[in-house]
């Protein structure tokens, strides 16, 4: 497994620009929630880091599923 990716080093391959922090809306089980994530300032391609996906996001998924 690779080392954790540093988000500041990420570039969007298509647009050739570094990712920057921006507003993203996530959605699950009918609930929408705005979060700040790294994404391509041009095309909007979003990056979800591994720690977020396997940590907080999973907790939120479980919480919403049990509602």
């Amino acid at each position, binding site marked *: *497994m*690779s*080392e954790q*990716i*540093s988000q500041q*080093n*990420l*570039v*969007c*391959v*298509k647009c050739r620009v570094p*990712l920057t922090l921006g507003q*993203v*809306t*996530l*959605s*699950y*089980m009918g609930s*929408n929630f705005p979060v700040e994530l790294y994404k*391509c300032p041009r095309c*909007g*391609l*979003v*990056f*979800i880091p*591994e720690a977020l*996906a*396997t940590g907080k*996001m*999973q907790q*939120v*998924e*479980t*919480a919403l*599923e*049990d*509602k």
Partner: protein
Amino acid sequence: MDQKTLREHEAKCIQENPPGCTAGCPVHVDARALAAAARKGDWAAGLAAFRKTVPFPEIIGRICDQPCRQSCKRGEVGDPIMINALEKACLVNGGAPLPRSAPLPPKAARVAVVGAGLSGLTAALELARKGYLVVVFEAADRSGGGILAIPESKLPRKAIDDDLAVFGQLPVEFRYGAAVGESLSLAALADEFAAVYLATGPGDDASSAAGLGRDAAGSIAIDPATLATSHPKIFAGGSLRRGRGDRSPIAAVADGKAAAISIDRLLQGASLTAGREKEGPHATALYTNIAGALQLPAVPAADEAGGYSKDEAVQEAGRCLQCECRECVKACEYLAHYGSYPRRYVREVYNNLSIVMGIHHANKMIDTCSLCGQCAQLCPNGLDMGEICREARRMMVERGKMPPSVHDFALRDMKFSAGDPFALSRHQPGHETSKWVFYPGCQQAASSPHAIRKAYEFLCTKLDGGVGLMLGCCGAPANWAGQERLFRETVQETEKNWRALGSPTIITACPTCFSMFHHNLPAAPIEPLWTLLDRIGLPARTGAGIKARPLAVHDSCTTRHETALHHSVRSLLGKLGHEIAELPHNRETTVCCGYGGLMIFADREVARKVAARRTGESAADYLTYCAMCRDNFVRQGKRTFYLLDLLFAADAGITGLETIDYSQRRENRSRLKRELLRDLWGENMAEPQAGIKVIIPDDIRQLMEERMILAADVATVVAHAESTGDKLQDTAGGHYLASHRPASVTYWVEYSPAGDGFLIHNAYSHRIEILY
């Protein structure tokens, strides 16, 4: 589940019923708790348990006649526990001043108690605590009655004084030298007071009880449940109603309590009789398993008159069996995991189904049960938590309340098995009809495709009338997931295919398929492969590759009632020369391996605990006749052989330690179908599209297995990224990062080009959707 069903389920779990000692005690002393405290030397806690229901502990703790001992379970394996001796040990060693008695706000009604013996004093105490003004009429010049005749050595006067000191805090007036009879008539008392309790001790003095109705024997007629007499305001009890030969101090106390309850109810205008069935001594429904308990005699007291020393009391309390049922919880790791027992769990399931808003706390518990039915086998009343959880899952699915993530992976896998990549239905090559059809089952084929093929080829040579082949899924994952509609559709599809083959006898290799068909395809004759092989014989030199050894047989939970199957499995092992080691719970009481009911997808930690416990039960190598059980045990590091492999793949050099991941399981199924079609039926199935080549190192493969990500999922992400260009690059390491959401899960893959393919560095997923 409605309220009525809930109560029926709850009633079946008898764990909360009192132990025999408590039920048999007229005032229901919690002797089990007392013994538990005494065992730890916690005398104060023991005394507190005693005081809870005994109004005069100093007295009763020394002179109780212990009817409880007759229903002490220890009596079946040794002497009943010396309960009163333990009570006395708690009194002597745990002595703390009696807590101040705080009566309820005073009531206007005045109650007369005739007789200051144990029974009258108890009634006076209980009534005074409820706020009644009580006047006690006693013929003698002091309180105590019959107990005053007990020698000082057994019942010191100080003990009596200490107990009776409680009256100093309560609105009770004592009138000594006041014999009820000619000068002070009972009728006059009944006129003056709101109610009267007559407890004048043995003797049934005609003058004191003048005017009360008599029974056929000439004694005062007393209702045993309420202690009511023929006079609506007069109650009578204590040794008055038992006679001189039966002076039970604890029964006298119990009567005093019962009279106080009756009088209170009378004065409150409530029913005298409602809900009093278990007020007195009764039998308990609590089941306690004493198998394996050693016969133990009572611990003798060195100082017989003085009672137990601390050490002796601890020892004696240690003999207490601490009666409880928990038969199911003791055997089931899943039930034990939540720290309680089915009566509580049923309530949690019910509440979980009932709440409209808020968190469904029991979702995980409901979804984690293996539905194996062991609890129903072990429960004295047959309570089946599996059926309750299965029903709850159906309701959750019906109402859209089933967490989608739990069964998603298993249901997608089921779809794979029931679809083109695996499903197949054919007559035996060269045959137009089928007398038999072999149904190996999707997971058996996923785990042991080689053995499945060999078994089919063997059946074709051995059985007449044509042996068709059906590959597919029996629908078990849908059934376990509560997906009733999907399950029914799957069963109907199987039935359609089976009828198209001419309704042959189905030979199942998988115990779960057997069970699913047995219960849901009543028209189909079914026989497990194992009983069939036991009957028709085995291939020559079968199993020769595996050295004969003792094998601990793990019976599959889905066929716990198939006695013939259990027998055949052992018979086959015998034919192979293996010795059989039986596990503690097996055959009809066998336990799930940790896969059943999709437990492994709901709570991997519990599933692992279940498998770990099972594999720890014997040092011998294990033998299963379900491939999933084998895989689960091998994951625990336990050498486990799958019977089909022993019979048909032993020459392939199996070690009993092979593991197969989810990706291989799919690959094995589709390859089995392709190869069988090609080699047996001469049909060429299109090879799966070569697509993109991904190289997955072992550590990443392991991580993907834990995260339930397939090699195919990873390949899809890379293919998507490479074709659309939607990917990120880490400028530090040069790796690409891309995601794709083919259905309900977003997969992320970190990769880099390598030769003509792509090397995978990481993979993870989430269900939350990125909107914009």
